[in-house]
């Protein structure tokens, strides 16, 4: 630890001991109860599947091969297959859409909440999380009932006379998108708010005094303050939504598999733990690389001032 770091530290926890004492509990708990168990699964990915779940202790890379190649239905020869890559791509694409949609709603929402009075701010935050006391499955099913052809939403629209036949609100990509946003919204709003709440609105005043347009003021003054929240929120929405499948299963009609389903069935009905483990390790590696790249970039930016 350098003298400079010590100076920049807000809490003067300059002593190595204090530093370790603060960091170690969280890191230790994760190392013991998460990294160690996952290491077991890493080993599993190089073994052979047992007949009905579990593993046989023989080294094999079949799990990894299976991701890219399949044995022909008839003659058993290895050939390239994009099936699993398509599923992986679909899941990542879904997560990206979900993150963008959440951002579009959350930035204005977090900004709006930050402009409320000191007393009403926590109420708004609370209002956003209260619906999440209800189980996700139940919420998603309720959303389907609202969106479907004879649901209250379509009935209301038809009563206004805008259309005579129900709008296709359910079992399509629109419904999936809506369901994804519904699953993850607070995970974007809260970190954004958390970062932005300290914003000094006099800065905006100063900007307007200097004849900045609203647009410029937003992008040059508001957004940079939100940035840490933006990163945190994007991680909290993007990564879990890669593995999520309730929205496509229920609101999309269950016509496609997501990586979460795929890995799940390998550990359950399909009894192929090594393949499930291999898929997970690939997914984990990809997310880790992206995360480390982001961390490095954000660290460089932070040192830049």
């Amino acid at each position, binding site marked *: 630890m350098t003298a400079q770091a010590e100076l920049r530290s807000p809490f003067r926890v300059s002593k190595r001991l204090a530093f370790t*004492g603060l960091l170690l*509990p969280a890191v230790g708990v994760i190392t013991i109860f998460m990294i160690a168990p996952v290491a077991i699964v890493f080993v599993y990915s190089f073994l052979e*599947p047992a*007949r*009905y*779940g*579990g593993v046989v202790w023989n080294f094999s890379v079949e799990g990894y091969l299976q991701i890219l190649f*399949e044995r022909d*239905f*008839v003659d058993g020869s290895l050939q390239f297959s994009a*099936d*699993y890559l*398509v*599923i992986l791509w679909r899941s990542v694409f879904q997560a990206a859409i979900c993150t963008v949609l959440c951002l579009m709603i959350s930035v204005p929402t977090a900004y709006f909440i930050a402009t409320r009075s000191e007393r009403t701010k926590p109420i708004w935050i609370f209002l956003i999380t209260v619906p999440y006391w209800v189980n996700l499955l139940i919420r998603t099913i309720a959303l389907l*009932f609202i969106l*479907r*052809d*004879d649901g209250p939403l379509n009935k209301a629209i038809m009563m206004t006379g805008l259309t005579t036949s129900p709008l296709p609100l359910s*079992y399509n990509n629109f419904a999936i998108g809506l369901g994804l946003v519904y699953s993850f919204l607070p995970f974007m709003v809260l970190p954004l708010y958390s970062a932005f709440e300290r914003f000094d609105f006099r800065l905006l005043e100063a900007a307007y005094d200097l004849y900045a347009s609203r647009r410029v003021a937003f992008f040059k003054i508001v957004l940079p303050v939100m940035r840490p929240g933006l990163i945190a929120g994007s991680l909290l929405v993007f990564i879990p939504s890669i593995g999520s499948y309730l929205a496509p*299963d*229920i609101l999309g*009609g*269950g*016509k*496609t*598999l997501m990586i979460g389903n*795929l890995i799940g*069935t390998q*550990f*359950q*009905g*399909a*009894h*192929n733990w090594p393949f499930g483990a291999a898929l997970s390790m690939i997914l984990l590696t990809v997310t880790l690389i992206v995360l480390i790249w982001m961390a490095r970039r954000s660290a460089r930016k932070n040192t830049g001032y």
Partner: protein
Amino acid sequence: MKLNSILLTTAAIAWASPAFAAGDLFIYTYGEYTPPDLVAKFEKAFDVKVHVDTFDSMETMLAKLRAGAGGYDIVVAGDPNIQLMISENMLEKIDVNAMPNYVNVDERWRDVYWDSGRQYSAPWAWGSTSFMVDSAVVKGDINTLGVLFNPPAEVKGRINMMRDVNEVINIALRYLNLPRCNENPEDMKKVLELLETQKQWVKSYNSEFKEPLVSGEAVASMAWNGYAMRARDEKPSLVYVYPKEGFTGWMDNLAVPKGAPDIENAKTFINFMMNPENAAMVSTYARYSNGIKGSEKFVDPKLATAPELAPPAGTPAPEFIPNCSPASTKLYDRVWTKLLN
């Protein structure tokens, strides 16, 4: 320091394992399957506290018990799962056939493929998997799987299939008149082609079939008989079909997992459940048949006449499908993955 004391307290709470009283019975089963009044009756009769824990699917239960999770005295498992658990040495041999109430078990359920002679398991409930049709919409011959796989115009786009690899592939194999648990890749290729063709007419893949049928989103859907009866309660035009190609039967059984903490209580419960009056409570509550003779007179009379539970004369016997070989499981998984891609 505050942090440390919090951690210590948590650790203390975390590792303090709960103390078990002598009279406990831990049951691991589906939710809404165990009648509360049955539990109360058993608790009162034997002074045993019954705890019911639920799983969402047999797969979760199996994965968990396979990994060595213990502590359950009774587990409710389907016929192929019992077969698997016996072959993998996961169940206690409790000699159900020597229990006093075994005489009540219907002969039909004694020498079953999954536990011939009933050394490990006792019947809990049984039913069938077929499909349901809205007779107000669908005209013509409905007693065929063709309604699902070669649908008439009014059914196209309004089919619901279960989201279950085994149920879907087995019904497709039956339509194609090919053997179940198929290991022949050529056959499975045909299944995939059939299901891919059908997919354009499928509204949704959803094992919760009651809501789509009752709301009218689907006019033909795969169904379990007991739950189909609930659907008909809400929409009388729904008909549970026994197709001429045949249909799947299944039985959920009571068994004792290896290392159960209280095998004696478990045996007491299993014997208790082979009493007609108690078995009847399960049928009335869950709307599935039980395998116990003499329970008919205690069951809700509505069930005795329900076409879902009492098929018309001449209906083919349900086909019970054993646990498939790893080779066929792999093929099923591949067809499923390709279908939902």
